[in-house]
């Protein structure tokens, strides 16, 4: 394979690209100038030619999505950037914001030009405090340098809700509401933020835009695994691997190579048990399935997904039932409660998985678990229900022996030696998903030092 091009994170190892002067020194904001000299349609044509696809997980072609945004509606047009990175296993957007914030801003301004928007909102995950500060400093620098022109860029901080990474929930949250997804259609391109045309893209997608213009759409489309998986991805390697971290690589690299050559193999020389590509919302792969290339078509052929570029490596010490229980707890906690199959189904999954893990489940309950997954899959407004049902169903089908052993032996075969043994789910705060079903209504409690301060 040819030397891998680094595009999105280019130059960040050598220079401090959080500074405007440094970013300009590597050609920063020149593509913005170029784009502003092009017509919006010409910019969109380049994006379509590049076949740059959404890096948030949905993999929708960005150029086509931008072309859906109607012009001259008499309403403002918005660009919303999804920086609400929350998919377990994903930590790439954080790296982009921390290391190449100006590339993200340049991408925002180019995309805003392409859809003729003067209003950009970057919805940044609430927990990302350092990232927010770096991005804010970069934005201030760009504004002072007059790069924004007549475009306003607003950084909006989230407040801790996984579901707000879903595009319509993000819009609801931006509008100051509970982050519950809307039903589609109408799609955001037609009726998004404040019922106006809105383009929503992930941080990595937007940060790739300047590079698409620099290389030209046709050249960009030759990188990676054309025609469908063009360009590079920032792969987030984590779990039981020797060298975890973010690695920007061309799409189509083999999973085995990423884990063994780049990641240094399974940590401690242990045996590989499973890999989760895409993120915790996606199906698992067994150790014997890692000879697959990381592009949408190759993964699709074996029922897996590229998702947000995640690769979670799991060694032999992990009990897959416990993994399922922890994953299901996450989705139960994060279900917004709007659609019944997801709200109730995720809780059923947790309850059954807990019984299986404790060795108290009957044979029929394994099938019941699959049945529950089936009743959630594809039956909700947003993909969160699918994101719970798909992985759980894959754990049961691919590691059926292990689930069966729990039922037969009446206990976890790995017992306390499992690497996930006893892992606690967070104390539940969502009224809609509390473990005991009670509403969390605020009431005057004993005063603590912090409460009195400033009152």
């Amino acid at each position, binding site marked *: 394979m040819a030397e891998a091009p680094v595009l999105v994170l280019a130059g960040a190892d050598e220079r401090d690209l959080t500074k405007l002067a440094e970013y300009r020194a590597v050609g920063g904001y020149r593509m913005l100038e170029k784009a502003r000299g092009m017509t919006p349609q010409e910019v969109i044509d380049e994006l379509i030619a590049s076949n740059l696809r959404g890096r948030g997980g949905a993999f929708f072609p960005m150029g086509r999505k931008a072309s859906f945004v109607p012009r001259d509606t008499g309403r403002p047009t918005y660009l919303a950037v999804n920086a609400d990175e929350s998919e377990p296993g994903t930590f790439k957007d954080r790296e982009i914001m921390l290391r190449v914030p100006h590339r993200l801003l340049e991408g925002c301004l180019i995309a805003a030009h392409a859809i003729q928007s003067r209003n950009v909102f970057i919805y940044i995950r609430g927990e990302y405090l350092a990232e927010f500060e770096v991005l804010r400093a970069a934005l201030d620098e760009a504004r002072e340098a007059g790069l924004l022109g007549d475009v306003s860029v607003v950084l*909006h901080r989230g407040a801790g809700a996984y579901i707000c990474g879903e595009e319509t929930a993000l819009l609801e949250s931006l509008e100051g509401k509970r982050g519950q997804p809307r039903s589609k259609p109408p799609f955001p391109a037609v009726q998004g933020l404040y019922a106006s045309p809105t383009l929503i893209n992930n941080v990595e997608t937007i940060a790739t835009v300047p590079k698409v213009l620099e290389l030209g759409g046709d050249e960009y489309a030759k990188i990676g695994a054309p025609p469908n998986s063009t360009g590079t991805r920032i792969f987030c390697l984590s779990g039981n691997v020797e060298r975890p971290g973010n690695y920007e690589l061309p799409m189509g690299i083999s999973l085995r190579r990423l884990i063994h050559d780049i990641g240094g193999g399974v940590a401690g020389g242990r045996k590989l048990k499973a890999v989760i590509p895409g993120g915790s919302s996606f199906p698992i792969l067994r150790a014997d399935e890692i000879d697959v290339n990381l592009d949408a078509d190759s993964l699709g052929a074996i029922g897996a997904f590229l998702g947000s570029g995640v690769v979670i490596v*799991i060694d032999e010490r992990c009990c897959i039932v416990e993994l399922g229980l922890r994953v299901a707890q*996450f989705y139960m906690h994060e279900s917004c409660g709007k659609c019944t199959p997801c709200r109730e189904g995720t809780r059923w999954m947790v309850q059954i998985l807990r019984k299986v893990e404790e060795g108290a489940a009957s044979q029929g309950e394994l099938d019941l678990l699959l049945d529950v997954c089936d009743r959630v899959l594809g039956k909700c407004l947003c993909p969160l229900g699918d994101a719970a049902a798909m992985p759980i169903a894959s754990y049961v089908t691919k590691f059926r022996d292990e689930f069966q052993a729990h039922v037969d032996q009446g206990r976890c075969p790995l017992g306390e030696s499992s*690497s996930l043994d006893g892992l*606690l789910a967070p104390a539940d705060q969502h009224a809609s998903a509390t473990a005991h079903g009670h509403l969390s209504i605020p009431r005057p409690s004993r005063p603590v030092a912090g409460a009195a301060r400033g009152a």
Partner: protein
Amino acid sequence: MPALRLAQERYGWLSPEALVEVADCLGLTPAYCLSVASFYDMLHLEPVGDHLVEVCTNICCGLRGAEAVLEAFQRELGITVGETTNDGRVTLRAVECLGGCGWPTVVAVDGRYRLSVSVEDVPAIVHCLAAAARREREGSGG
């Protein structure tokens, strides 16, 4: 949401009184503000300590020993997850993925990430918090 955040920054948590204040400012009802606030994990509807320690317990950190780190915090602070120390200084929470999966275990102390935290690092973090608390006490006393 920015208004709720501001109120929380001022009062430490969103008390019913704080929600009434936000509602009055925005021309909304307190119930509506509560419905929004209750949706988000980072908006506190109950008092929390001066300092917040949040340990990621999702799968990536979990595979690399988050449970032991959490136990170490419980031991050092003398509280269980979700509780605040008796002096009201520190609240310990277990949280979902913080997005630092390459450097487990991720612990956020007052929103600042500490990466690759191991059980051995916990006493020093708790010590730092205690020292900060002492400084604050002395600061407010003098």
